[in-house]
């Protein structure tokens, strides 16, 4: 019973939060800062790339991409370490 009440209260709280987020969202095409327009207007001139998304990912926010690459490296390293054939296990 208590469990059901707790689950219901959690769901209601999440519903209120999502509803509040939905009604306070900004209308389409009105960015909250001037940065969006800055990137659209200056990315071709500053980075030379016609693809503004690539300009953001690899130039303006290159540090984030470095983190992404690090995550992929760690994932591949962990999987290869766990699943590789070991010579000392081959005799088992």
């Amino acid at each position: 019973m208590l469990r059901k009440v707790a689950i219901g209260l959690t769901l209601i709280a999440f519903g209120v939060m999502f509803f509040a987020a939905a009604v306070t969202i900004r209308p389409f095409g009105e960015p909250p800062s001037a940065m969006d327009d800055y990137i659209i207007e200056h990315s071709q001139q500053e980075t030379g790339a016609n693809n503004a998304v690539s300009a953001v990912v690899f130039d303006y926010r290159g540090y984030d991409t470095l983190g992404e690459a690090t995550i992929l490296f760690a994932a591949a390293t962990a999987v290869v370490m766990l699943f590789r054939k070991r010579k000392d296990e081959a005799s088992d």
Partner: protein
Amino acid sequence: MSKIVRTVAKLLTPAILLFGLYVIMHGHITPGGGFQGGAVFASGVALLIVAFGAGRVEQFLKEHQLSMLESGGGLLFIGLAFAGLATAFFYNFLVGSPIFGHVPAFGPNPGDIWTGGTIPLMNVAVGMKVIAGLSAIVLVMALASSKQGEDE
């Protein structure tokens, strides 16, 4: 897998791998980039593994080659990031230089490949990383599961 699957995989795999490389190489012009193209390429490798088995794919694609490719991509990426350190980390120092240095006019202008500064090179580096990383994950897991199946 059956002969139908293998024939279709033989037909489709070159197109999938070529499309992945295209998405990587044109990351600074068209939608996509290193991550997306690398994922496409690795899905082609996964199709080969499903169709022909991990043991057969491993004859052509060794695990240590993949780890070398991944480390090389990572080093190239971080090296390019450090190369711009005279101004800032990740500074695009190749804009205006003879290498990938065209500065396009404002607005849509398709087809100018020689643009973007370090962005195409970083796309290639990240593409190498993603190709090798995802292919190594799929290949090593498939090898482990197929070996387990033989033991049982």
